[in-house]
């Protein structure tokens, strides 16, 4: 079987970062901007401040314990992951439960580029040009039933492909979940690329979640299962340290982690911190999801 791996993609298919930027400048010079083409006005906030970090930063500094607990471990170790062929099991309160190949599940949908702020619960941050499909488009075609109140996601469990799983530093497999309205929010992405290239293994190939208003650990990587459920699902870090990590994990500068302040964040590569924005700067689009909720209790 021919398995196309990122390394097999001819270099002619890959947009060099410099060309990516020059295209971007060219688009800007035509006055198109980024937001206009995507029909999501206001999404980008102060667009000129949202310059993505470099490919090397985004793909070289990762929390992906399945490949080791050090930030540079995933880049060094994730070559053992085989992102193709890859199947995703859809289960639970849904009309079309099935095992889909990663290519079939997106067939016919339009991928989009989204430049998002990414805020880690450890108080560092970056900006990444993700490439993917709004989760809502996928959910709509799967047709969840009325009992589907939450969506649960599961990462691959395979200690051969993911050697970090040989140590029980976390409960494997990694699991995460979203409330249905969070999952259906237009900002929520199933991400398959960065800088227009296939997403590298260390960033969660072949498909990961991106929820830009929540701490990074919500954005589960290398997804093999999507389950529609009635009860709030467990999520791995809340299992590991329930007093430190919650289910909601919305970026919130006013609610500290027990061991450090969340009021500020340090952009990767920089010496000084900058203030963290409520909902990571996406409050005008997502704050209504949590109206009336005590965000201190539901951290």
């Amino acid at each position: 079987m021919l398995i196309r791996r990122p390394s097999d993609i001819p270099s002619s298919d890959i947009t060099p970062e410099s060309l990516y930027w020059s295209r971007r400048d060219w688009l800007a010079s035509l006055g198109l901007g980024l937001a206009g083409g995507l029909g999501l006005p206001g999404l980008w906030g102060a667009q000129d401040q949202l310059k993505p970090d470099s490919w090397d930063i985004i793909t070289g500094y990762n929390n992906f314990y399945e490949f080791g607990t050090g930030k540079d471990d995933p880049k060094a170790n994730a070559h053992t992951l085989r992102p193709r062929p890859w199947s995703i099991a859809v289960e639970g309160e849904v009309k079309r439960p099935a095992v889909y190949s990663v290519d079939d599940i997106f067939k016919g949908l339009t991928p989009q580029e989204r430049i998002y702020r990414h805020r880690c619960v450890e108080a560092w941050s970056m900006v990444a040009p993700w490439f993917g499909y709004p989760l809502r488009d996928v959910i709509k075609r799967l047709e969840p039933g009325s009992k589907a109140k939450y969506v649960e996601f599961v990462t691959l469990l395979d200690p051969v492909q993911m050697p970090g799983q040989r140590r029980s530093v976390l409960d494997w497999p990694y699991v995460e979940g979203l409330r249905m309205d969070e999952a259906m929010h237009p900002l929520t992405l199933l991400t398959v690329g960065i800088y227009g290239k296939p997403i590298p293994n260390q960033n969660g190939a072949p498909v990961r979640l991106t929820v830009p208003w929540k701490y990074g650990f919500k954005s589960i990587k290398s997804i093999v299962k999507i389950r529609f459920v009635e009860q709030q699902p467990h999520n791995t870090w809340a299992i590991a340290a329930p007093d430190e990590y919650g289910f909601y994990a919305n970026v919130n500068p006013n609610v500290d982690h027990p061991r450090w302040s969340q009021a500020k964040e340090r952009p990767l590569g920089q010496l000084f911190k900058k203030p963290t924005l409520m909902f990571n700067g996406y409050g005008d689009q997502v704050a209504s999801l949590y109206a009336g909720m005590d965000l201190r209790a539901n951290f």
Partner: protein
Amino acid sequence: MTEAQLIRRVVKPVIWLAGLTPLGYQVWAFLTGHLEAEPVKGMEHFTGRTALVILFITLAITPLRRVTRRNSLIKLRRLLGLFAFFYGLVHFTIFLVFDLELSFGDLAHEVMKRPYITVGFSVLLLLSVLAATSPQFMVRKLGKRWQSLHRIIYLAAAGGVLHFLWAQKKDIRLPLIYAAVLAGLLLFRLIPLRVFAPPARPARTPAGVR
């Protein structure tokens, strides 16, 4: 060269050079952009680990002295201890400048609120006391009390390891290794001194007989 000369002219300069090497490496990495993607965290971890390692080397002098029965090694202890304090101070300064942006109000808040910082800051205070009482005239002035005072290095080392352990998110392998090393260094001190006494010398052969 006598042993005292060897220590003064060779061993101590080597310790100075080795002791300044981690700092030199950090300055080089800082100036040439070789720090990791989270530069401040990288510098904090590096200087903190360096402080602990040098503290362990300081605590290894006594065991080494007993095993080798070279009492002159004691002359290295103060210099090593001061280097450990120095890296602790650099570690704290990086935190104060880059994380707290020199806000002493924030410092008070963090020290009061976060146990691992409470412990880390206490260790720095303990080491400051040891550093301040390390000159010869202080040793003379304090007399017998100096020795009891300087036993707080054990507390400082244990606090340093606890601070390291508590700062971890999940993976505590490295702090546990540090804890094991410290436990070894402290347990060694429980071995009775007579174990290290020189073996009884054989009766000397009478003069003139070979």
